[in-house]
């Protein structure tokens, strides 16, 4: 009987409270909340379903909506009160006070809720799953056509044309065709001999053979590798000036992969997870640069991860996943949880401190040894600082004053949600990490009836604080929480000690500050979370940065190449949704797994480690509907100037639908079926009639298809910046075809004649001409390049030293007007054109160098052994505002020698001392004066420099060793015309912090030569008539456009 009776009672009680729910709660939920938070909502907001009991208890991405029995900790109640800026529900005016009171009562009595039914599992609506780009691509039979067909592509295009009343154009003439093909596949114009041979080649497969020849040339990989580097937002720095040590190994890996026709699925897998794969060649680790070489700024770790997610998802999948960082994707089926699944994969991967080798160092390479020692010193400096400051900071957190401050704040925050506690820390100057620890600790001690904190919780609850611990007698005197906090602070600080106390009461107090996991016992690994404001953070960043700077210094000095690799972190941290993107407000868990829309319903979490390998396999899969489509569309766009899908990095619901869906599918399917070979894909495209047709306008076609969406002709295109620059170097015969290696500086004069793909790219500080000519901005993944026309482009061609220099070289190499045509435009001039050219050249005056007086200064480096100065070499390159021996520093062997108007820096050894040399213009006595100054930076590393004044390469007039000091060096000497005086600076034992200022002056009876006043870059020289003519040809539309 008894059990039955109990049951009846329980039912009775339930009925009463159910009635409360039915009368007071449900109607409000139904009328005010269901519109966004129920099965009836067009789109459920915040993942919160209020139409089932389980939905209320599980809650949405912010966590449970209701904590039964505790209204203060229930988000739903908080939202109704409109007290949290970021959480006001329902939107607009708050509900009436009595309604809110009902809800509070309901939660307090345990939130009884008779509703049944499960919170629906989030599912992708079937209609969305059926969206074209989420469906696997299928094979399609080419439609019938009576037009010219060269590959399977043509029938698809021609069928569409027929539908639209359009027709294809005839094949282009052979010269245009070869120029188009050669630029397209290699980024360079055809060689004169190759084009003559091609024009004379009557064999039916002449074009096919040209295609094969070009696809096999190493320049192919440089061109197409560069296309991929746009996708990969490649640059040589993280952000302005912050160099990656080995970015070039990724760039070279990409170029090689294209040249070797690495299957695209393998290409993708290696770029995401080479470190998790069995590799035949360790050089493949460099592929991970795809992830690691993006933009990052100090304190921007969440944005760095976001950038990496963006490169992977837009770059490889054509999906804009990063739109879901703060809320579900507005258009595509990408919940914010999916974003944080990706986030977990990337956040659980880290760049190793030591980058792995991709080649074997030469045995006994002294640079390796120098590198190793430098690394040890720098890593030790980081550790040392951390330990020192950690000790100091933790001591502060254990002081009476700070304990009092934090426990008082923690008490007021006991029921705060993440956002509220963040606000408190910000507005009242608490360290958020420590405050949270105290908050959690106090909550635990309340629940556990902890003897030390029992009086605390007693007073907080309005009871008298009665201590159990005799050492805490003072607490009973406290009349307010403030007073009590102060007393706690004093007691706890007084009993703080490193070693345990014998007295158990004292020990209990000591453990509050020293026990395992207590708030003030902060492990060193969490140092960055508790660092003091300002200064410390900057110092740790600077010290860590010093490690990366050292790696780059050594890399540019020729350290054996290494990979900008990625590892899984040692321990995997679970990832959570950050509510509205706020990392201080973690919500529900987001297990590492693939996107819902591209997964089966029973989606499994990724396997061990970060999950990157699983992610890579999911992307580079035959069953992934997007990967192949996105790639073939990119390749198509790079050939034709526009993709079949014109939003190449957005295949989502708001992207542009394909102009030729069957063709896109057929290309993607075949591409996968035939081994993911990009070179095969090129052949299908460039051998097609569509590609080979003329670019000539046809008015009747244009009337029907202005934009040439249906490819009734080939698109004319303008050379991009790389093609423009490379072609100018090519025309003078000076193009250096060396492949790969460290970059060169694109700012230097004279220009380094390497291909533009090897130019040093400083993220956020690209050379102006790259920006002017619409180069891909490496701040982020670049789906397409803009094509703007601005007068600055013309100014560059009219006035830049680079173009003038190339025009001069071309003219010097050319035998006359006709030869200029061959070199620049790849054809012979007509008679009329030749006559025009000769007339122009004949009428121009010969170049006359303007009469500017020469100055007696030279800048260079030399070896100096204390007795004889040998091997003086003038610096060859002007890198704006400084003279140096190479376009980019440091360089192997020598380090970073350079001279500026006011000073400079010596190379790594006395063999690379820098010298500002004065050559006497006449006989006579001269007086020499000037102050040398050497300054160590903030980090007092380095043993200083030695400055010398040397007459005739051997006679020492003055000498001084300096370390963080300055000195006047003066001398008087009689010189004969042509004799030299060298102002030489050499390093001492090490090459650290060796920059100096020294602006000497040489004074004769009536003249004074001040070094800084004469300092200048290369003097521009007027162009001879033929070079002026060459410059005009470089400016022509014919040069700039490819038909």
């Amino acid at each position, binding site marked *: 009987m008894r059990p039955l009776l109990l049951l009846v009672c329980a039912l009775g009680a339930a009925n009463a409270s159910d009635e409360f729910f039915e009368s007071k709660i449900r109607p409000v939920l139904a009328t005010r909340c269901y519109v966004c938070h129920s099965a009836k909502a067009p789109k459920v907001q915040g993942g919160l379903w209020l139409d089932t009991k389980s939905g209320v208890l599980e809650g949405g991405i912010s966590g449970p909506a209701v904590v039964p029995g505790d209204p203060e900790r229930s988000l739903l109640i908080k939202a109704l009160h409109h007290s949290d800026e970021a959480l006001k529900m329902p939107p607009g005016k708050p509900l009436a006070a009595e309604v809110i009171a009902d809800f509070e009562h309901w939660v307090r009595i345990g939130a009884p809720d008779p509703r049944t039914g499960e919170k629906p599992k989030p599912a992708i609506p079937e209609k969305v799953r059926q969206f074209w780009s989420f469906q696997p691509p299928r094979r399609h039979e080419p439609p019938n056509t009576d037009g010219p067909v060269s590959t399977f592509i043509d029938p698809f295009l021609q069928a569409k044309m027929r539908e639209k009343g359009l027709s294809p154009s005839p094949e282009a003439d052979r010269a245009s065709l070869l120029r188009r093909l050669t630029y397209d596949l290699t980024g360079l114009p055809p060689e004169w001999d190759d084009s003559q041979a091609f024009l004379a080649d009557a064999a039916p497969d002449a074009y096919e053979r040209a295609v094969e020849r070009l696809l096999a040339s190493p320049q192919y990989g440089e061109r197409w590798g560069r296309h991929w580097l746009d996708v990969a937002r490649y640059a040589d720095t993280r952000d*302005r000036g912050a160099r990656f040590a080995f970015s070039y190994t990724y760039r070279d890996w990409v170029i090689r992969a294209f040249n070797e026709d690495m299957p695209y699925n393998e290409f993708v897998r290696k770029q995401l997870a080479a470190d998790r794969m069995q590799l035949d060649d360790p050089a493949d680790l460099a592929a991970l640069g795809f992830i690691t070489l993006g933009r990052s700024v100090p*304190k921007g770790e969440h944005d760095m991860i976001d950038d990496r997610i963006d490169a992977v998802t*837009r770059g490889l999948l054509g*999906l*804009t996943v*990063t739109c879901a960082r703060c809320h579900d994707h507005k258009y*595509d089926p990408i919940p914010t949880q999916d974003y944080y699944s990706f986030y977990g994969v990337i956040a659980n991967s880290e760049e190793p401190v030591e980058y792995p080798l991709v080649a074997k160092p030469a045995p006994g390479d002294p640079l390796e040894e120098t590198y190793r020692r430098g690394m040890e010193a720098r890593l030790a400096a980081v550790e040392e600082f951390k330990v020192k400051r950690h000790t100091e900071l933790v001591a502060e957190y254990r002081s009476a004053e700070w304990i009092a401050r934090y426990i008082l704040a923690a008490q007021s925050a006991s029921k705060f949600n993440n956002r509220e506690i963040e606000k408190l*820390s910000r*507005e*009242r100057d608490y360290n958020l990490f420590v405050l949270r620890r105290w908050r959690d600790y106090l909550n635990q001690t309340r629940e556990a009836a902890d003897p030390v904190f029992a009086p605390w919780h007693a007073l907080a609850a309005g009871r008298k604080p009665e201590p159990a611990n005799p050492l805490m007698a003072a607490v009973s005197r406290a009349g307010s929480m403030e007073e009590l906090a102060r007393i706690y602070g004093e007691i706890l600080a007084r009993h703080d000690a490193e070693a345990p106390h014998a007295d158990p009461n004292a020990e209990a107090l000591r453990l509050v500050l020293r026990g395992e996991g207590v708030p003030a016992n902060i492990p060193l690994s969490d140092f960055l979370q508790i660092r003091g*404001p*300002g*200064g410390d953070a900057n*110092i740790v960043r600077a010290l860590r940065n010093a490690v990366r700077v050292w790696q780059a210094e050594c890399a540019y000095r020729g350290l054996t190449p290494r990979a900008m690799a990625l590892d899984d972190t040692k321990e995997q941290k679970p990832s959570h949704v950050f509510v509205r993107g706020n990392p201080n407000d973690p919500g529900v868990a987001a297990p590492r797994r693939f996107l819902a829309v591209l997964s089966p319903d029973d989606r499994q979490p990724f396997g061990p480690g970060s999950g990157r390998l699983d992610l890579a396999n999911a992307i580079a899969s035959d069953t992934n509907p997007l990967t192949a489509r996105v790639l073939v569309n990119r390749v198509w766009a790079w050939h034709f*100037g526009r993709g079949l899908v014109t939003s190449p990095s*957005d295949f989502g619901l708001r*992207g542009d639908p394909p102009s030729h869906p069957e063709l896109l599918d057929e290309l993607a399917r075949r591409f996968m079926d035939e081994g993911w070979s990009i070179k095969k894909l090129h052949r299908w495209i460039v051998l097609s009639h569509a590609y080979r047709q003329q670019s000539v*306008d046809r*008015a009747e076609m244009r009337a029907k298809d*202005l*934009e*040439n969406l249906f490819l009734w002709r080939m*698109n*004319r295109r303008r050379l991009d910046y790389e093609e423009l620059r490379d072609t100018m170097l090519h025309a003078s015969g000076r193009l250096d075809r060396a492949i790969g290696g460290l970059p060169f500086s694109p700012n230097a004069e004279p220009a380094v004649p390497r291909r533009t793909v090897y130019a040093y790219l400083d993220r*956020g500080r690209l050379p102006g001409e790259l*920006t002017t000519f*619409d*180069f891909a*901005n490496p*701040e*982020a*993944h670049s*789906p397409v390049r*803009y094509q*703007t*026309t*601005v*007068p*600055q482009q*013309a*100014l560059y061609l*009219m*006035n*830049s030293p680079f173009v003038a220099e190339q025009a001069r070289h071309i003219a010097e190499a050319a035998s006359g007007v006709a030869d200029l045509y061959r070199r620049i435009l790849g054809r012979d001039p007509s008679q009329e*054109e030749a006559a*025009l050219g000769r007339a*122009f050249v004949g009428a121009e005056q010969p170049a006359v160098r*303007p009469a500017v007086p020469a100055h007696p200064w030279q800048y260079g480096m030399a070896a100096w052994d204390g007795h004889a100065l040998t091997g003086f070499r003038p610096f060859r390159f002007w890198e704006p505002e400084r003279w140096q021996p190479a376009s980019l520093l440091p360089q192997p062997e020598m380090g970073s020698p350079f001279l500026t108007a006011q000073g400079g820096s010596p190379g790594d050894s006395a063999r690379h001392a820098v010298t500002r040399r004065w050559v006497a213009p006449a006989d006579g006595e001269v007086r020499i004066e000037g102050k040398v100054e050497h300054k160590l930076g*903030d980090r007092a590393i380095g043993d200083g420099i030695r400055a010398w004044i040397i007459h005739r390469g051997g006679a020492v007039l003055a000498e001084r060793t300096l370390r963080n000091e300055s000195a006047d060096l003066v001398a008087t000497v009689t010189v004969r015309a042509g004799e030299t005086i060298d102002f030489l600076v050499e390093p001492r034992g090490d090459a650290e912090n060796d920059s100096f200022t020294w602006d000497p002056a040489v004074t004769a009876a009536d003249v004074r030569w001040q070094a800084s006043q004469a300092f200048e870059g290369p003097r521009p*020289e*007027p*162009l001879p008539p033929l070079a002026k003519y060459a*410059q*005009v*040809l470089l*400016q*022509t*539309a*014919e040069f700039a*456009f490819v038909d």
Partner: protein
Amino acid sequence: MGFGALALGALLDSRGELHAASFNSPLAPRKPHFAPKAKRVVHLFMNGGPSQVDTFDPKPALAKYAGKELPFKFQTERRTGAAYPSPFKFAQHGQSGIPVSEIFPEIASQIDDICVLRSMHTDIPNHEPSLMMMNCGDVRQARPSFGSWITYGLGSENQNLPGFVVLCPGGVPVQGSHNWRSAFLPGAYQGTHIDTKEEQVDKLIAHIRNPVASLDEQRRQLELLAQLNRRYRESREEDSLVESRIQSFELAYRMQMEASDVFDLSQEPEHIRAMYGEGLQARQMLTARRLLEKGVRFVQVWHGAGQPWDNHNRIELNHRKLAGECDKPIAALLKDLKQRGMLDDTLVIWGGEFGRTPTVELPEDGANSGTLDGRDHNPHGFSMWVAGGGIKPGTVYGATDEFGFAAAENKMHVHDLHATLLHLLGFDHERFTYRYAGRDFRLTDVEGRVVKDILA
């Protein structure tokens, strides 16, 4: 053909959204959503962060607490201590009676044209993110700058000069070109940085002058080029991309002369030069006016390289010196714009990336050379002022708390400032978007409200 053929008018479509595409005349003038009050902008950037309680937000209550802890304190970059009253005197000026610190006597004389914003606030107490917020509306991610947005939305009135010009003497501010970047907008909308310490025009705009060839020689080259291009064109049809490229050489030729002209201050009459005074600030304010007059859409003028107003120590000495440099030139710029009738449709913005604490910064290693006479960064509350272009003159908007630590009344976030300025320029900040990476981006992200109270 292809992308290039997009008609200019199509940049703004029927929904009022601007479109990403490639275009032949990216700087052609365009109309915004509705009739604008302001047609151009000059932003006077006091980089480093001027102190509000020493400039436009007097706080007598600080004197009561001098040397004592304030009752509350907000989190800033470094540690600060007791209340630190302003060493400067304030007096009321003009009809409006708005109080201004003694360090700005000349600006004070123009106060009736100014609207002081005392309740500005931003997010982070570090320069880099706050500069990015003020300029690009986002603390860290690569977003287009305000000037780029405006130039993109309105084009420019002068095709022979860049539409967005950045003046800074002696180098670049912290974050350098990020402050005026175009990010995902085309490169043509990026600010053109000009070091106003340089006097030669060829240091001002890249490749603006040929180092050796005379204009006559260039003319002859261009004549030949035109002949060769004519032949090329004859054998081909109309192609707007080819056409605009050919035109761009003539444009460039004219730009060489116009640019030399605009930076040649000797063309100004003596009394105007005297009004601006001597020194770098005078020169760059006058240059700014000449650029605006020539039709440049957006001019940003930085006080100097690095972060001159970042006075963690010796604030009395430093603030007095900095204000002394720019006070007269800024007042002259206001007067000069007004006497030319340009102030009515020119927005003048003055301010830093954040403000400074009313408390004294504590000495710390490697922070402030160990003195007790400076103030730390403060994003919680700071002052700016705006004038001209549809702004209500002679007013004060908003207030900080009793001590000037945090914005308290009518709080105005940087997003709100952007929304309001865009409104004056004819844009609904919520509709002024650019489609990129699947999202319609805005300068104001998902925030911002137009502060109607400061509109004339």
